[in-house]
């Protein structure tokens, strides 16, 4: 059974400047017995504080909040890319992330080769990849261009290739960080349909967006993040009207 469980999760983010990256500095610190502690070298940002919530299969959670409120950090935490500094996180199910659409694509390779490579990097087996290759290629509508190196593509064409791979498969948990509206008008409709299909297939969706319109369409729950804390969480309409009233 797919689920996400977060219990009192904190995440502190060390930000290093050039100095603290240097070995000499650490050696000097070690030699002086730690008296010369220069705390300003490492700035610690508490990116997430006191995050407690759980999601079951069928939940579609939207994240809303200012830039820097912790939406992306929370998504990366759920993806397992970040480990919490304190607290407990449990997830069960195959996770798929839509953060960077063009992940792992190589300009010197053809569109076709990139479909194959990105599908493998995103964790599909060789058999799965070969099975879905034709379908992905059809979706891009690039035809013979797929046999030409990606460096000759326009940015819209590159996005088509990336999007085709990223939205393939049936994840248990789908994490999306703001991606909508790629390419020309016709393709925007086609890609949002494909994305909606993917969302319908997935067990749990967590989705960050600034667009209330999309949150209303896709989510049954919404969470407001502010300075890394949950300000409110609940039914979509209720939370969105609360958000409107306070912002």
């Amino acid at each position: 059974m797919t689920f996400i469980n977060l219990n009192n999760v904190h995440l502190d983010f060390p930000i290093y400047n050039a100095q603290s990256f240097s070995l000499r500095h650490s050696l000097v610190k070690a030699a002086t017995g730690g008296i010369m502690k220069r705390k300003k070298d490492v700035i610690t940002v508490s990116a997430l504080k006191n995050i407690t919530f759980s999601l079951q299969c069928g939940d579609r959670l939207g994240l809303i909040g200012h830039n820097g409120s912790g939406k992306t950090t929370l998504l990366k935490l759920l993806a397992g890319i970040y480990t919490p500094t304190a607290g407990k996180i449990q997830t069960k199910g195959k996770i798929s992330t839509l953060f960077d659409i063009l992940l792992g694509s190589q300009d010197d390779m053809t569109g076709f080769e990139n479909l194959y490579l990105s599908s493998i990097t995103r964790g599909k087996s060789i058999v799965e990849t070969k099975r879905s290759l034709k379908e992905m290629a059809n979706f891009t509508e690039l035809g013979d261009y797929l046999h030409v190196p990606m460096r000759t593509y326009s940015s819209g064409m590159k996005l088509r290739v990336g999007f085709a791979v990223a939205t393939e498969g049936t994840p248990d948990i789908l994490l999306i960080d703001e991606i909508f509206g790629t390419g020309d008008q016709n393709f925007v409709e086609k890609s949002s349909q494909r994305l909606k299909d993917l969302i319908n297939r997935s067990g749990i969706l967590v989705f960050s967006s600034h667009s209330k319109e999309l949150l209303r369409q896709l989510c049954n729950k919404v969470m407001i993040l502010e300075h890394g804390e949950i300000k409110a969480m609940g039914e979509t309409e209720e939370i969105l009207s609360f958000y409107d009233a306070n912002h």
Partner: protein
Amino acid sequence: MNYTNTLISEFYDCLKNSHIWLILSFTEIKSRYRRTVIGPFWLTLGTATTILGMGFVWSSLFGMNVQDFLPYFATGMVIWIYIASVLNEGCSVFTSQAALIHNIKMSYFLHVMTMISRNVIIMLHNMLVVIIVFIVCGQSINLNILWFLPGILLLFLNSFWISILIGVFATRFRDVASMIANLTTLIMFITPVMWKVEMLQEKRRFIATLNPFTHMISIVRDPLLSQPPSLESYCIVIGVLFLGFNFSLWLYRKYIHRVVFWM
């Protein structure tokens, strides 16, 4: 105990997903030589010219027969090229995969395997040079060559922990990469890659015998040159492997979760 189990299952996962790192490493080599006529055989050709050119000069410096010197030098050099690449690319084993690390949860072992398998593939290309040199110089082989397999396996296992160690340190401390780049040239000259341990004065032999790279090279090279494996070298390499692996895995367990913040 719990930690050991997670590491074992992580390692098992990494082996189960071997198609990922194999495809990634092949792609990297292929894209490096895309649109060249002879492709990855530039690796072979590059190594061949180095070995031939240096071989002629150094054999005469050492007062040795080219035919005797070349097989020794070629095998040593091919192994050294592998070691040097692991040392240098180990520094960027995580930073070069920053995009992947920030987007998909994968075992960090997988990035190490990508780098190592890429260098193993390069080594296989370079082995062609060794084969050609052996044929041209009439180097004979005997059953001792079977010792090559455990030897090379131990070398690969050692490169695994070395990469984790260097990878974690070099991501945190950016000076490490430059430091290692500087040191590799020195290490090559103080390690018996092109000279033999016996050429050293008796009282200075410790330079070679205390150097773990001497033994890593020896357990791979000796069997190729029909010599029986040296027990001393095996003991040292296995000892280094045991200590190194334990230390690296301890470091991995303790700090690998921080690596994403250091990039």
